[in-house]
């Protein structure tokens, strides 16, 4: 066991070193003031509208779009992530500011309806194809049997043509 004197001498000799290490660690792990940017203007611009211009913000160059861009930059500088920036924009401009509808409530139908329509179309296509194949395989169906070749004059003409091209 160390005596209090030893402890004091340890503290006395290593204290400045420990303090420097602690200070370096503090500098290394302290986030910049306002929080590190979690998104960028380019990242947000492609997903929000300039509601007054009626175009994506990244394509808009009107004064209104420039004001919206300034607001987005300020929100990013405050350390807000993309979702928080979008929420703030909705609070200012309404839901029309979002380029893509939100995945909840009635807006969910924007995603569900195309998916359901695709499934229904695929099922209908599968049934249609199955039915057409059944009809084709039956005698007197729409499709021609695969083993039935040309006959009569057609067969003779075909033979003559093929013989002409024999090397």
């Amino acid at each position: 066991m160390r005596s209090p004197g030893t402890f004091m001498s340890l503290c006395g000799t290593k204290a400045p070193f420990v303090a420097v290490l602690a200070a370096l660690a503090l500098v290394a792990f302290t986030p910049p003031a306002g929080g590190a940017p979690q998104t960028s203007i380019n990242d947000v611009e492609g997903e929000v509208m300039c509601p007054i211009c009626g175009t994506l913000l990244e394509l808009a160059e009107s004064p209104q779009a420039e004001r919206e861009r300034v607001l987005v930059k300020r929100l990013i500088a405050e350390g807000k992530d993309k979702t928080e920036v979008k929420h703030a924009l909705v609070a200012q401009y309404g839901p029309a500011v979002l380029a893509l509808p939100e995945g909840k409530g009635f807006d969910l139908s924007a995603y569900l309806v195309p998916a359901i329509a695709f499934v229904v179309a695929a099922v209908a296509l599968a049934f249609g194809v199955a039915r057409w194949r059944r009809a084709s395989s039956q005698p007197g169906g729409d499709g021609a049997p695969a083993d039935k070749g040309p006959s009569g004059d057609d067969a003779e003409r075909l033979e003559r043509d093929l013989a002409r091209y024999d090397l």
Partner: protein
Amino acid sequence: MSARAFLAFLAVCALIGLLGFGLLNKGEAKIAVGDPAPDKVLPVLGGPGRDSIADYRGRWVLVNLWASWCIPCREEAPVLDRFARRYDKRGVTVLGINVQDNSDDALAFLRENDVRYPQLRSIGDERSAAFGSTGVPENFLVDPQGRLALIWRGPVDGEFLRKQVVPVVEGRS
């Protein structure tokens, strides 16, 4: 008619109905003088609480739709502010409704132009659509019973207020 044909007919009718519904909803609201003023409780711009046109029932209300990015709005704001102060005691209120804007820019606009009449804030263009608005600024005079007495889709100036608004609120028209 077979059941299949009937179902196909119903599907076509539903599709046409859906398209019609979409087209009808796309159109802006049509309002006319004599109609009840489109109204909704809105947040007060830059302050606590909520307010509506109906809260001024019994007074004439000159509703001004504006946005901070609108250049003509910048020119008419001081004119409206002077009119508001002059006619306040004669039963007229000028009520600004900020639309299609963000609140920081809107508040900066009011400070820069020293505008002091009451202000509400409409998020997005909901109020513009309710008034059948095609842009900003637009002005609507609402009578003490809450009906539209005048619709002016554009900026106002002193002459317009003297010739078009004052005679109405003073009962001379």
